């Protein structure tokens, strides 16, 4: 049953985690303490936001080769790659992002992201939950938004409110202590394949008619049913079956049929896994799905960093550009938040020595993120890193501030209560740091 084994996600060593971990944690707690003194936040603005699209660069993308290029740091830092101007005067991005450079007015960049944690899982956990690991396992932002903007709160879509393209982050449960019904639908399959075979929903071998026939046969044969129809477990089973069949034979599943898009549109996004995932995400946002995650892996470039960048960056550049432009053209950018980040950045000083041969190690002390749409201004840069992009020097943004902004613009009070099965008094996020949420780039 090799298919049942883990869906492998690429992970690479993080021996340097301990080196930085302690300092980072200390910073985190310090900031938490300060936060208790922070002034009361004004009321949450009424939101038009329907969907959030998270582009998760699994492994920790280099901030220097994306949104925080350093032209003055020298070869040991930039590896000979340069910054390019964007259509917003004074804002530069890496030369690896020529297309995004042309639409810098559509998004904002945060260059002072920090949490100081260099372990993939623990840093991912921070960036997804806004909390340091340890004690209770909290749900990630996708599960929380899927719950708080989901079926209990007016969402009526047939597609589950939280979709993950195409593999889960794994390692730790994304729903934390929440009820399993808030788990994401993880599509599996390849959106760039001839048929995007969403696991369990799209079955290339069977027509809908055959599926319906099969279901009738199935119901006929279920002998125990007639004896125990009132059993609550059985009712739950039947309800889950109705939901499943809605996706299999109902029209809802068609949202995953990328062949419904024109060749040109598909081409704009790039005919690769990431590009087509972005296209699928747009279709899902169009359908009102509250939270969509694209887990784009392969950014853990300990070795041969620049070669990997040359391969991956064009896909990211093309897919993300197409997504933002397409959303805008369809009038969806105001109702859709797009954010893009990894769990941390990468060490600005390149490890030229063997065995890295031009690699970058983990760097949670300072990294960058992108936000667009849904009430975020475009064309702005928040915060600043030092001349080598090693430390944030202005307007520090911690995970809870960053996530808090997304929650806030999505209409969820980050300081409000998060419903939980234990019935405990739990807030959506811990208090914001001194710098606070990204209010300067709210529209």
């Amino acid at each position, binding site marked *: 049953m090799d298919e049942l084994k883990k869906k*492998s996600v690429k992970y690479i060593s993080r021996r340097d985690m301990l080196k930085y971990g302690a300092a980072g944690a200390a910073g985190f707690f310090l900031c938490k303490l300060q936060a208790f003194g922070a002034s009361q936040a004004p009321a949450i603005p009424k939101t038009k936001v329907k969907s959030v699209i998270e582009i998760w660069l699994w492994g920790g993308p280099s901030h220097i080769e994306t949104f925080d290029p350093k032209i003055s740091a020298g070869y040991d830092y930039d590896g000979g790659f340069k910054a390019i101007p964007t259509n917003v005067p004074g804002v530069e991005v890496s030369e690896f992002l020529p297309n995004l450079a042309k639409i810098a007015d559509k998004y904002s960049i945060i260059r002072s992201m920090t949490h100081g944690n260099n372990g993939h899982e623990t840093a991912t956990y921070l960036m997804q939950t806004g909390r340091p690991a340890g004690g209770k396992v909290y749900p990630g932002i996708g599960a929380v938004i899927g719950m708080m903007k989901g079926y209990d709160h007016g969402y009526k879509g047939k597609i589950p409110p939280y979709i993950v393209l195409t*593999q889960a982050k794994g390692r730790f449960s994304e729903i934390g202590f929440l009820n399993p019904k808030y788990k994401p639908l993880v599509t599996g399959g390849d959106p760039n394949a001839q048929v995007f075979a969403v696991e369990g929903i799209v079955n290339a071998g069977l027509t809908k008619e055959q599926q319906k026939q099969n279901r009738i046969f199935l119901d006929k044969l279920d002998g125990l049913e007639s004896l125990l129809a009132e059993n609550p477990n059985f009712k739950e089973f039947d309800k889950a079956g109705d939901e*499943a069949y809605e996706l299999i034979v109902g029209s809802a599943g068609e949202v995953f049929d990328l062949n419904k898009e024109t060749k040109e549109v598909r081409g704009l996004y790039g005919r690769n896994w990431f590009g087509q995932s972005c296209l699928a995400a747009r279709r899902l946002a169009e359908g009102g799905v509250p939270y969509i995650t694209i887990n784009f892996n392969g950014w853990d470039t300990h070795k041969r960093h620049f070669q990997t960048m040359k391969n991956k960056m064009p896909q990211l550049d093309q897919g993300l550009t197409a997504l933002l432009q397409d959303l805008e053209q369809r009038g969806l950018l105001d109702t859709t938040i797009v954010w893009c980040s990894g769990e941390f950045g990468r060490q600005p000083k390149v490890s030229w020595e063997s065995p890295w041969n031009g690699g970058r190690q983990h760097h949670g002390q300072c990294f960058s993120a992108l936000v667009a749409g849904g009430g975020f201004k475009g064309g702005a840069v928040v915060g600043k890193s030092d001349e080598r992009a090693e430390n944030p020097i202005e307007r520090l943004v911690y995970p809870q501030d960053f996530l808090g902004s997304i929650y806030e613009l999505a209409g969820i009070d980050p300081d409000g209560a998060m419903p939980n099965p234990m019935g405990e008094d739990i807030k959506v996020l811990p208090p914001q740091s001194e710098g606070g949420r990204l209010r300067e780039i709210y529209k």
Partner: protein
Amino acid sequence: MKSYFVTKSSTYRFGYASRLRRETTARHSGFAACLNFIIFFIGLCAARGQVGSGFGFCNRLFCMAFFYPVLIFIAESSSPYESGKDFSPNGKIDELQLANFAKLGIKPAKICSDAVFLRRVYLDVIGTLPSANEAEKFISDKTSDKRAKLVDDLLNRDEFAKYWTLKWCDILRVKSEFPINLWPNAVQAYSHWIWNAVETNMPYDKFARALLTSSGSNFRDPAVNFYRSTPDKTPSGIAKIATLAFLGSRLQDWPEYDRKEIEKLFSRISYKKTGEWKEEIVFFNPEPSGEMIVDMPDRTKLKIPSGHDPRAAFADWLTASGKKWFAEAAVNRTWFWLFGLGIVHEPDAFGFHRKNDGFLDSALGSFIGRSPCVNTGNPPRNPELIRYLADEFIRSNYDFKELIRMIANSATYQQSCVPAVEDIAAAGKYFAAYPVHRLDAEVLADALSYFAGVSPQYMSVIPEPFTYVPAENRTIELYDGSISSSFLETFGRSARDTGFLTERNSQVTYSQRLFLLNSPIIQNKVTNTPFLKTIIENAKGDSTDIINRIYLLVLSRYPSEDEIEKILLNYGEIKAPGKGGDKGGKKKQAMKNANFACRQLIWALINSKEFIFNH
């Protein structure tokens, strides 16, 4: 008039009945109405209320009794799920249950059929589906003590230790990483230690003491991982896992005074690193010196002299004045593992309140002699039963196998899942029917692998060093909770973050249904099953035989008449062509058709409630 013809095997009835039916179709249909009418009356005379009510199949069985002289007049079954036997006490458990039923005004269900018992006890005791051969053999076995013998056999099988180790690994939080960092080496040592304890049936008091009083290296003294497998290593954090594991109680719900007292017992544990990568020593730190006095919840005062390890005092208390609580929590958890429902439920939420006057209010009833016995919070559903089980458990020297044997042999455990009373909620709550519960993620993964004729394979690239699970290992042996598997996630395996039993989730979700109904993974498994070819070829063109074999394979029982009829109606004859005669092309087509129908049938059965739920 009661009928106890257990020895009338189901093979006999189902297998022969169906064959007979084909031979006598004309006669049968001719006489059916009339015979059914007569049988209906016999049924009524026998005070068998359900006969005739919608079970045409059952009536036909009665018909068979006429046609087939060997069969006895009153067949024992009204469905494939029941034996026809009424609940009749087999020991003290059942007597206590009947007494409770009388109080509540409810009735127990009938005794389940042999086939259901077989599947149930395999799943509950060894986490494994019976093979088709095992099912066939057991069903046709005519000895009267075959159920008890089966229980004994299962308790001695390798899978028993594997499966119960998995359960313990849930509550002892065995995982390499996040948020608990045991690391793979320590997970191996710890899980092997647990396995060895289960395998050798270590008395539970010794097991608890070994974990509680452990000191040493996480690699060389595996039990110390009990103290490492929590992200919160403060006295309060450790007291939480200790009370949860051994008292089935959540410290956070305790009154503050008692919480603080018991936390003292875990205040002298220290940890230190060694030069070995990821090695850690857990040890008793005698500082600060001085006598420690701990006021336990039952008002026993533990006096721990300077230089003595308070953890040992806790272990002593568990098997002395705290022993009823200790034993009740253990038997209740075992009961929960067998029924999917505890006598105290949630099984790790033994209530505990102290009233304002300082007296103890306990869900444990009268276990603490000096306190008033008001059941508040989370009372047991049958207080006498849990007390009896705990007493027996103590008397047996904390023998888990003996406990499981006693429960599995009870009529209570062997009830059908179909309640005999209208009030199904009460029946469910008070064990007046066997509570259906979904198969564990791991058990299901193994069952599906078994059908597909492949071994499950697991590996994990983090944390380092990489873990590769040997190909021949079953999923129920997957002791490291960190090894990723989207299947196991989907089907609710325990996250092992807290040790709460509720971390293992047995809900049914749409994503589980999607997976089983329509994923390519399931399709491949069904398509590639190596059993199909053998089944079709061995059947020599007999549709009924094919259907029988498939039912035995997937549901461990024979199909009913009704079911065979429905299947044949849907697919026509399912059979491979006989030897010679036909032209090659036709033969091939027939084989293809048979294959298709069989695969559809397997798919449908895998997606039935009967398969997904242990019933």
